[in-house]
């Protein structure tokens, strides 16, 4: 019986020839990540250990992105605690306001993750780096503390669900629509404890941004990780961003999967997750007259340059509807700068949108776009749980940048084809 892609990465990191689903293993970590919310708890736990130095000051990274730029005094104290810790530990990759971006957009861009890595992050969307062919997964603060101290983490080896992709996406349809479609199909616990492995000839038609977006939301199906087979596009991306050498792991021909799905990309249409679960999917075109108050374009799911380009293409020369607040948040400083140089920010501002410095802010109801009771938002973020973006009586509709931009123009949820 062969191994899945995930199992091969894990085996290589625990010194085993072979690992099997269900086995408990202790693996070596290539990177340990935390943010301004989870790191303070981790630092407090780390300090109880009595270990002077982290296992490797180049393999621990902290990104001040959630409540930064500091939204209040308490948030400022939390960032200060991280800053002080990273200073004392001489952490090489500490990203503060001015350098920081949303962690899961930033780390691949900075080349901190390459194919074949094992990464843990005290943030559930750490699964994003599976797009690069790495095993990466979200953990809590105590795991982060333990990872910083020992460079190791324990895992139960997961079984996997295989998604074979074929065909090509239609215009105005992107990775977000694919992953929302899949979550709608298998449910928010459809991949619980398991890997979601993506392969097939359709892969070549997905950009790295599409893949990062899809791997990002594996957690919304309950998965331990999402992982994409490495191809030329992956290797080009890694070579462009990192000086490290990628290691390519391919699933064995006789790998065993719990379930297998074939997804025809050409059949996917613009998809929206209605409140209050990502699995509650509907086609954008069937949305009728759902009026909206706010649109958020950004986040670790859809704040990359390609997302900015997609949104700008739709907003160009048009106006955000009266009564709608449209907030665009490039995910990193580089995305911000590139969007500026390409004239995208001008398009957003002329359309009547607000453009913000990178932050996770509104996605988790932190700051920069909180909803009042009864308000409704279309967001390119990843969760539409009760109260996630503000008041418990507000509503979030998850969608692609294309749908979000088109909806901003119409003032109601719509398929981008309606405005183009």
């Amino acid at each position, binding site marked *: 019986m062969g191994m899945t892609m995930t199992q091969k990465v894990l085996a290589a990191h625990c010194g085993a020839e072979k690992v099997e689903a269900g086995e408990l293993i202790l693996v070596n970590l290539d990177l340990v990540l935390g943010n301004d919310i989870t790191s303070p708890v981790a630092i407090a736990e780390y300090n109880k250990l009595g270990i002077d130095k982290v296992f490797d000051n180049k393999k621990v990274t902290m990104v001040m992105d959630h409540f930064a730029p500091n939204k209040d005094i308490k948030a400022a104290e939390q960032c200060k605690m991280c800053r002080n810790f990273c200073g004392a530990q001489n952490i090489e990759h500490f990203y503060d306001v001015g350098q920081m971006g949303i962690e899961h957009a930033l780390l691949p861009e900075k080349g901190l993750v390459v194919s074949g890595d094992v990464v843990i992050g005290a943030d*559930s969307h750490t699964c994003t780096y599976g797009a690069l062919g790495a095993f990466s997964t979200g953990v809590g603060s105590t795991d982060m503390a333990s990872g910083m101290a020992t460079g190791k983490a324990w895992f139960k080896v997961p079984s996997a669900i295989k998604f074979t992709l074929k065909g090509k996406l239609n215009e105005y349809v992107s990775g977000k629509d694919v992953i929302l479609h899949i979550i709608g199909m298998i449910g928010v616990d459809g991949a619980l404890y398991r890997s979601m492995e993506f392969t097939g000839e359709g892969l070549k038609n997905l950009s790295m941004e599409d893949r990062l977006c899809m791997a990002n939301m594996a957690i919304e199906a309950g998965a331990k990780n999402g992982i994409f087979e490495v191809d030329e596009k992956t290797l080009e991306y890694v070579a462009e961003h990192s000086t490290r050498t990628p290691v390519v792991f391919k699933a064995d021909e006789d790998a065993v999967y719990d379930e297998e799905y074939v997804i025809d990309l050409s059949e996917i249409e613009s998809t929206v997750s209605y409140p209050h679960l990502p699995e509650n999917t509907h086609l954008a075109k069937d949305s009728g007259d759902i009026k909206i108050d706010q649109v958020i374009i950004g986040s670790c799911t859809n704040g990359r340059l390609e997302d900015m380009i997609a949104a700008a293409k739709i907003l160009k020369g048009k106006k955000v509807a009266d009564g709608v607040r449209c907030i665009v948040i490039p995910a990193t400083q580089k995305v911000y700068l590139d969007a500026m140089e390409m004239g995208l920010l001008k398009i957003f501002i002329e359309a009547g949108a607000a453009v913000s410095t990178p932050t996770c802010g509104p996605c988790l109801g*932190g700051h920069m776009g909180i909803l009042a009771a009864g308000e409704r938002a279309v967001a390119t973020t990843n*969760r539409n*749980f009760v109260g996630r973006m503000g008041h418990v009586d507000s509503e979030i509709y998850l969608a692609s940048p294309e749908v979000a931009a088109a909806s901003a123009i119409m003032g109601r949820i719509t398929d981008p084809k309606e405005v183009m």
Partner: protein
Amino acid sequence: MKFTGNAIKYGDNVDTDVIIPARYLNTIDKKELASHCMEDLDKTFVTRVKTGDIMVAGNNFGCGSSREHAPIAIKESGISLVIANSFARIFYRNSINIGLAILECPEAVAGIGEGDKVEADLDNGVIYNRTTGAEFKTKPFPEFIQKIITAGGLVESIKKGIIK
């Protein structure tokens, strides 16, 4: 490990955003976190929870964000044990790592109602509903996990050399 308390029952997909809303994540003070526990799902929770009470829930409990503040808030509020049909994986490992006892047992979830008096004997793998007289068998934790819990959580197991 034995636990006795009254059941406080919830449904499926209780996410970490309702367990502890992000607007309160600007602190790591355990008492403060506990004072907002379950706020966006059940405002009455903090006023009615008693030390030792047992939380009972459906599928995929603790889904969403990796915030350890969620199991911390539940533990600090006085809940001694969470029984659910299934747990989201990050919540599951966070609970073990901080020493909050959690257990998957769909039979017990089906057979325990709001307010029932529950007794759980994890050493012998039995849960009793003292209100109805029903009994439910459970599976023990894997040995590796038991070692972490017995040591008092992940940090303690590193200090004691169980994880090197």
